[in-house]
Each structure stands twice: as structure tokens, then as C-alpha cells.
């Protein structure tokens, strides 16, 4: 049953599949470890694992720039923010805040039902991938991406800049040092 068929031992497709399954396992195991873990710092480390797995998936899919951006900004920015938040708001080290058992069970059940429904929908959908025999084009170069940002997505690009400005002002104001009240 596990005959290789038409795939030679080291064909590009097998290498791509091995890399894909490796990074996918890293991402999914990290994500589910977050759900099942209780300690907040461990959840941050598992989130790092998940982000690294997703970045690897971006590299396998041919979006190298996005993979690099994911590692730089998501893992190196947002995750650091989360760890800072954990550091600044902890009083007792190692304290575990756990919801009641009934709540956790209900939450896991809802997540499982949602996951099952979506998996079923993914399996039942015939995903048309274009004309048979033609390979869908891979992601292009960085120049194309830049032209997209300054072309069709210019308005969204500028709006993202405005959002970042608003967030900087808002977060800076909300996090200001207050005199003792």
C-alpha cells in the first residue's frame, strides 16, 4: 500500500511533502498544546512553536517574503509583546488560572465541533485547481508585491498606516504612568 508509485525517492514533490508535513505537525501540535496547557508562559512558548511552523509553511508554499515577515514581526514582535504583558502582570510566579472543569469541557467540545464541521466541509468541497495539466503559477517576486501595494491596494496600505498611527497614540496614552490614585 505504501508503494512509491511514480515518485522517485528524492523527487521534488516528496521533499516538498516531507517539509510540509513536518511544519504542519509543528504548527498543529503547538496550537493544541496551547489549548491543553494551563501555565501562561508555556502557552507563549507553544505559540512560538506554532508561529515557527506557520512560517515554515509559508516557505514551503513559495511565499518566502511572507515567511520572513512572519518570523520578524509576528514571532519577533507580537509574541514579544505577549511575553512582556505576562511579565508585567504577574504577581505570584507559577500561578495557574484555570477555568472550571465544566467550562473547559464545554469550550473544547465547541472547538471540536467547529473543527469537525470545517474539516468535513473541506473534504466535501471539490476545489477546482484550474485546467488539468497546467500548473498554477507560483508566487512572484518581491517587485510584484511592491507594485501591488502601490497599485491596487494603495488605499488599504494607507489605511493600515493610519491604523498603526492610531494604535501607537492610543496604546501610548492608555499605558501611561499614572500618579498614585
Amino acid at each position, binding site marked *: 500500500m505504501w508503494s512509491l508509485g511514480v515518485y522517485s525517492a528524492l523527487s521534488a514533490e516528496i521533499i516538498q511533502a516531507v517539509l510540509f508535513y513536518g511544519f504542519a505537525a509543528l504548527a498543529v501540535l503547538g496550537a493544541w498544546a496551547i489549548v491543553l496547557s494551563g501555565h501562561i508562559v508555556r502557552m507563549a512558548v507553544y505559540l512560538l512553536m506554532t508561529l515557527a511552523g506557520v512560517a515554515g509553511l509559508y516557505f514551503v508554499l513559495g511565499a518566502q517574503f511572507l515567511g520572513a515577515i512572519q518570523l520578524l514581526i509576528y514571532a519577533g514582535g507580537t509574541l514579544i509583546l505577549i511575553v512582556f504583558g505576562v511579565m508585567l502582570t504577574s504577581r505570584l510566579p507559577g500561578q495557574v488560572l484555570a477555568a472550571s472543569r465544566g467550562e473547559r469541557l464545554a*469550550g473544547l467540545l465547541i472547538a471540536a465541533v467547529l473543527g469537525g464541521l470545517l474539516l468535513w466541509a473541506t473534504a466535501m468541497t471539490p476545489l477546482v485547481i484550474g485546467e488539468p495539466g497546467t500548473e498554477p503559477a507560483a508566487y512572484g517576486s518581491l517587485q510584484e508585491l511592491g507594485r501591488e501595494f502601490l497599485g491596487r491596494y494603495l488605499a488599504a496600505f494607507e489605511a493600515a498606516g493610519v491604523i498603526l498611527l492610531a494604535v501607537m497614540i492610543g496604546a501610548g496614552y492608555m499605558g501611561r504612568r499614572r500618579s498614585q490614585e
Partner: protein
Amino acid sequence: MKRGVRISAAPEDNQEVFSKTAMDALVPISLSHVMTVSVLLAAAGVGTILTKRHAMGILIGVELLLNAAALNFVASGRWLPWNGWPVPQQADGLVFAIFIIVLAAAEAATALAIFLNFYHRFASMDVEKADQMKG
């Protein structure tokens, strides 16, 4: 084994393709493989949001959901050509994913500022403490 229906331009070419071996279904990575990973990440994100009492835990769950959505965008942009208007470009999936990363960072910063205020007020990160509007 999963059935795949390939729709081609000539109607007489339509046929159902059955996977002959496990390798045929598993090795050529396609949209459904990546979408399965995205679905599993999304389910984990929803599970985290629903079962955590620590405020940072809920934020981590939101980050998981955003990652799942960005992965879905990248995979769909890679494999789904569509004949809609406007003319699709090849970098569409990448652009959406970059916007998701930008907005996730902005939202994490805002949430952190809110949680710092929460901790300043309640001296705890337990979201059960925020019950003053109850009842």
C-alpha cells in the same frame, strides 16, 4: 480515499479521479492539505479563547485564529484561480496575509494596553474579575 473532481473546458473530459495509492492523495501538496492545517489551527484558536481564564491566554487564542486565516489566504491565493472582476493578481494572497500580520500586531499592542489597565485596577489577570456590569 478522497474523490477529486477535475472540471475541464471540454465536457467529455470530465471524469472522477480515484486515488490509486496513499501516496497519490498525500504527496502532491494541494489546497485541501493546507486548508486542513488552517482548520485545525482555527479550531485550536477557538478552543483557547473559550477555555482560558487568563487575559493573555485569550489574546494568544486570537493570534492563533489570525494565523489560521492568513494561512488560508496564502494557500487560496496560490491555488485558486478565479474569473471574477477585478482581474486577480498572483500576489493577492500575500497582500492579504501581510495586512493580517500588520493588524494582528496593532491589535496585540492595544490589547496589552487594555490588560495593563485591567491589572492596575483589579491586581489580577483573571477575566472573571470583570463582572461589574453583570446583572
